[in-house]
């Protein structure tokens, strides 16, 4: 596949998934004296096409997976998968940030470790930090929270399952 521009990448996803891609935006930034540009792409995808979208992304180029960020936004948990493509080519790298919302009533997301094995640490992290169940994860153990953090407390959550009580009672 020829190298796509950031607009073409958004189009590439829109063509395949139509209305299941939402809020796509391209951030154009520049830096230095020569004002060379770089691009960050952001879009939201429907949970039903999540795995397909990651596969679709891999067809552009095997992406560099950076990390998964998580936001507790009330009824849903928003997971943001940060990728980049076209690394190794001078000033051509494009960051692609794909967010997917998972309802708190059914906190499940598919594992992408079968496509990108390097995502394992991050998937283990969202399991323990947000209480999201990653289906098909090759290693189910906790990773950063070991020791005295009880099960059922999820440090990134803002609701009653968050760490507030744990923090308040820390010195008791």
């Amino acid at each position, binding site marked *: 596949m020829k190298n796509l521009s950031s607009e073409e990448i958004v189009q590439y996803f829109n063509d395949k998934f139509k209305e299941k891609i939402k809020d796509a935006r391209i951030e154009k930034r520049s830096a230095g004296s020569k004002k060379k540009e770089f691009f960050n792409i952001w879009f939201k995808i429907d949970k039903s096409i999540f795995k397909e979208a990651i596969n679709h992304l891999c067809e552009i180029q095997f992406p560099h997976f950076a*990390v998964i960020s998580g936001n507790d936004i009330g009824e849903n948990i928003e997971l*943001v998968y940060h990728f980049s493509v076209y690394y190794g080519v001078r*000033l051509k*790298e494009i960051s692609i940030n794909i967010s997917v919302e998972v309802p708190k009533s059914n906190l499940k997301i598919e594992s992408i470790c079968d496509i990108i094995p390097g995502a394992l640490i991050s998937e283990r992290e969202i399991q323990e930090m947000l209480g999201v169940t990653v289906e098909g994860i090759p290693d189910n153990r906790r990773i950063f929270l070991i020791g005295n953090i009880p099960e059922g407390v999820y440090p990134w959550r803002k609701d009653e399952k968050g760490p507030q009580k744990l923090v308040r009672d820390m010195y008791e």
Partner: protein
Amino acid sequence: MSEKTTYTLPIGPIHPALKEPVAFEFEIEGEKIVGVDLKVGHVHRAIEWIGTQRNPIQIIYLAERICGICNICHPLAFSRAVENIANIEVPERAEYIRTIMAELERIHSHILWAGVAAHEIGFDTVLHLSWAVREKVLDLIEYLTGNRITKAVFTIGGVRRDITKDQYPTINKALNYYKENLGVLVNTFLDDKTIQMRSKNCGILTEEDALKLCAVGPTTRASGIKKDVRVDQAYCAYGDLDIKVMTPDIVTGEVNGDVYDRIVVRLLEVEQSVDLIEQCLDKLPSGDLVAEPKIPKLLATLKKTEGEGIGRAEAPRGEVIHYVKLDGKNEAPYTWKVRAPTYNNLLAWIPMLMGEQIADIPIVAASTDPCMSCTNRVTVIRNNKKEILDNEELHRLSIEKTRRFAR
């Protein structure tokens, strides 16, 4: 047919030199490693949570304390994330000064690592040589920022310290020192027979593994993957500079992805950093240091800003990425996610260590630059009897292996 028995060798987790202590559990068959498992998180300090209780200016100083060695890349990535959200244009002069600071950090971090690597294989004269060479850059950092380690030069929208013309002679003197003395260090590492024996074909990370496990920094570059944020993306002044990705074939003509290659890449990058700083000093534009010098005004703007953004930077160990979400209601960010380079290099350890010998653990683990001198206490369970191998013992094993080669 006799049944092969394996035993478990736990190593770690705590050593002050580590920014992220790691506990390894090795499955050992004789001297050979046949299984690797790792546990991290022993010093998870909930820094991201603490950050969500503070305003962005305060977070800069918190971010600086995520790591003692790369304390430039975290405030840089965080500032860039916030600047991206709020559309803050950083003045050109500030971009150049940021670049100079980031490269000074790379020089000191890579030479520090070189010393640690030499120490791990029992070559302590080279440790002392490396760290003596490193001292000059710390002096320079102190001269420019007032501090050797936590430099506090970053702020959102710019930098807090200028580099003036009358500082040039001191900077040039230090850079010339490196031009003259790096050669000795490079030759010591690359031409020494013992170092070659200990590091060549040891701890191999194949290109395929590096790609699939999403390794970053010199670890992935030594495996031949051209990935360097400074080259890939125009951030700070890197878009203006003459820079290319350092891979080991530049020196050796081939890519093996072993410990030796990781040494080559880091040493090349030190030379490159000196060159980049010179380019920056040559081109340093005039102008402001910061986009909005009044901090209360800046904070008021950020409080009203809603949005999410990422900031990336190339730390000495690899790509750093920060994700920030501001909700437009509170001063403190709604979410702050920090991804340090070692996070992505953790999984790369597994293929590197598989099949190696116990005495190679220190140098292979150290080769990704997490400072694996964390081997402060090791329990060997052999024939159901517990033997404690301490740091000295394990270090002694490593030295013995070097001596065997040197004979």
